[in-house]
């Protein structure tokens, strides 16, 4: 397995290089100029050009690329063109809210969606199956921001149980930290609960028809053991894939949820950086996201071997 792990990591290097080159070129070829944004509304062309020169944006493209790659190889992601702060410090400020929200949402998703999917498969065609399936259609269909606003209206404005917006670091108190994560986690998980509940149900239905399930029941095993130990474990591979991909999506940016609940995460950072053409920040974030996808996919592949002993690397 170690050899497989190292091979996969080495294979990621050309992927990252292609991503780096593509994002660099795409940004430079797209319209927009950070110097005009820095200079402000009243700046004249001469001031804008002075800023371009100071930022190195008047250098030839290949020079800019090699300077960036050279710094990257030394672990330097550069400095934001707009705020003049280190890109790494900007990303690290935003990492905690994003990871916290993603972990809370994915945990809620798994806790709710997997049992719902198992129960729906077990009670196929019964009212509870129909209820789970129709509710999941609602989860898919209603936009995330609508769910967010409804939750805010009910739980924050009407009942006043939870805050309407904002994020507090865990350092500022566990109570504040959790209370401000509940509504965004519920909002963000709604679509994933729907997706994973359906996915679990489908996988379980496939497995429940297998001979070894019939054998397990014939041996007199209880329904819970049959469902969760024998069936779910064998149905887990596609579910794990979706959970992993969902987590990667959440970490790489959930702009709408972050915006509605005013959470200063990576999603908003990347949107702000794109709008202000802050090249070093965009480049670092896209590379980070690409790296994250590579690692999460690798971890998912490795987890298959844990849930299904037939899989060997």
């Amino acid at each position, binding site marked *: 397995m170690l050899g497989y792990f190292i091979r996969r990591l080495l294979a990621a290097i050309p992927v990252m290089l292609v991503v780096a080159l593509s994002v660099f070129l795409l940004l430079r070829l797209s319209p927009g100029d950070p110097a*005009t944004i820095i200079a402000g509304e009243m*700046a*004249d*062309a001469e001031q804008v050009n002075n800023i371009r020169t100071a930022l190195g944006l008047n250098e030839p493209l290949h020079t800019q690329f090699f300077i960036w790659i050279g710094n990257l190889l030394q672990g330097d992601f550069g400095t934001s063109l707009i705020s003049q702060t280190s890109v790494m410090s900007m990303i690290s400020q935003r990492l905690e809210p994003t990871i916290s929200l993603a972990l809370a949402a994915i945990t809620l998703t798994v806790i709710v969606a997997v049992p719902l999917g198992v129960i729906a498969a077990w009670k196929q065609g019964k009212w509870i199956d129909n209820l789970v399936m129709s509710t999941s259609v609602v989860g898919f269909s209603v936009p995330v921001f609508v769910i967010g606003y409804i939750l805010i209206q009910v739980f924050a404005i009407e009942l006043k149980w939870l805050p309407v917006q904002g994020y507090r670091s865990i350092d500022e108190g566990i109570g504040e930290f959790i209370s401000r994560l509940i509504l965004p986690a519920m909002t963000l998980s709604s679509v994933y609960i729907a997706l994973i509940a359906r996915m679990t149900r489908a996988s379980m239905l496939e497995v429940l028809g297998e001979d070894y399930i019939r054998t397990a029941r014939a041996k007199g095993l209880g329904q819970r053991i049959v469902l969760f130990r024998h069936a779910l474990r064998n149905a887990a591979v596609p579910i794990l894939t979706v959970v992993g991909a969902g987590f990667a999506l959440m970490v790489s940016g959930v702009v709408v949820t972050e915006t509605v609940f005013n959470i200063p995460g990576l999603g908003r950072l990347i949107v702000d950086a794109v709008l202000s053409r802050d090249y070093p920040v965009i480049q670092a974030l896209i590379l980070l996201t690409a790296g994250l996808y590579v690692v999460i996919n690798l971890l998912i592949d490795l987890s298959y071997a844990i849930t299904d002993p037939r899989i060997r690397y």
Partner: protein
Amino acid sequence: MLKPKFNRRSTGLGMLAAAGMASALSFAANVQADTTVRAVMHAALRGLDPVASSATITKNHGYMIYDTLLGLDEDYAPQPQMADWEVSEDGMTYTFSLRDGLTWHDGTPVTAADCIASLKRWGTFDAGGKLLMANTESLTAVDDTTFELKLAKPFGEVISLISKPSSVPAFMMPEAVASVPNGEPLPNQIGSGPFKFVADEFQPGVKVVYEKYDEYVPRTEAPEATSGSKEVYVDRVEWINMPDVQTTINAINSGDIDYIERTPYDLMPLLEANPEVHTAVNDPLGWMSVARMNFLHAPLNDARIRRAALLAVSQEDVMAAMIGDPRFYELCASVFGCNHPRSSEVDGESLTSGGDLEEAKKLLEEAGYDGTPVVILQPTDVATLAPQPIVVAQALRKAGFEVELRPMDWQTVVSQRASKDLPSEGGWNMFITNYSVDALWSPVVNPLLISSGETGSYFGWPDIPEMEKLRAEYAATTDADTRAQQVIDVQKLAMQEVNTIPLGQFKLVNSWRDDVSDIVQGPLTAFWGMKKED
């Protein structure tokens, strides 16, 4: 009967818990003792150099941590702030004397040398500052707290330029900071203003934190606009960026924040229904919306066609679409904005009376308009800039223009407007933007009137020698009556040449919770003077 049992371990744990609780309570008390105003400003602060950047949010940041030599009172008249001034009898030498007790945030005293370096730096960025420096023979320190500005030729705008609040105010910085070469970031955020910047808590695009500067010595006069006392009554100010307006409204209604700098007009009813929230206009002058013409390319390189475009526009239609609520806008045909002493609406009657389509059509015919489309850049992501291009385009079409609206985000507009290419090759004919009236209010400060062609003019690059002559005459004149006539002459020429089409004047609505009070009226949100109940 149950008796409590004690042992060494539980007693120790109990003491630890008590100590922890006491410490937590003490921490909580400290936190509560600080009065913090949480405000949502109109934009996120990212750039920190209020002289190099003319972004409004960066200017607001500048007023928090820096101070200015002079300020404006509520009648927009210059007043002493950091310094008092005297003018020699011949009007050629201005002597500035710093008041006592001024210190930078690192404790060192503010000196004349700091102010000279700051004025020189400002004079390389701001259009008004450049003009002042072009007319200045020397800036010399007389002693540690006094310096002289000697003019090279008569110039009537020294005091008004140094006291102006837009677009780039003359902020005073320590000499070491003001000596940074242009294009390089400032080495620190040390000013002498009423607030200190808390660098450790700055999150670009998310939050900015300011703390009261305890050693700040305020003036004794009452606070007015950017002058008078800047005494601070709160311990901390936090600017929190909220990208969603509905979230902002929910936050002030629930008490999460105390102040909104620009309240969205369409969500005003949600605040007006809450007795705990006040809404009001704190800046009586407000902003102008203007359509900027590109003088380089057809069809708007012909003054008659530009005038036809102006005649086609009805300000009422634009303002109704943009603001909606008539309490917050007024029609104003002056290129200087209205409601201040330098305003004139001469020759702009059509703008405020619904437009004059017949005259516009006639002019287009006279000019031999050949149907070349007018390319209008249309920002779609800013609520106060999105509606105008649509209304103006429709008005132009009614007059007989062919119009192409080019939708894009505002930052792309900001980049594209610098392009001198043909409109068919990525250039443009017209874009629309908004300016605070104090950035437009005289022939000298108004950047849209600069008409020196491709060198020195604002985007659009008008080349009108007569306008440059009038502006220069105004700058050199000190007689009030002559200046009043010069303002009218500039307005007349601007209506004839149409550097821009004034689209109407509008007010920004501020909102705050009822435990906040004593908000200073003026051209920016001032956090000095503001009080908040504990």
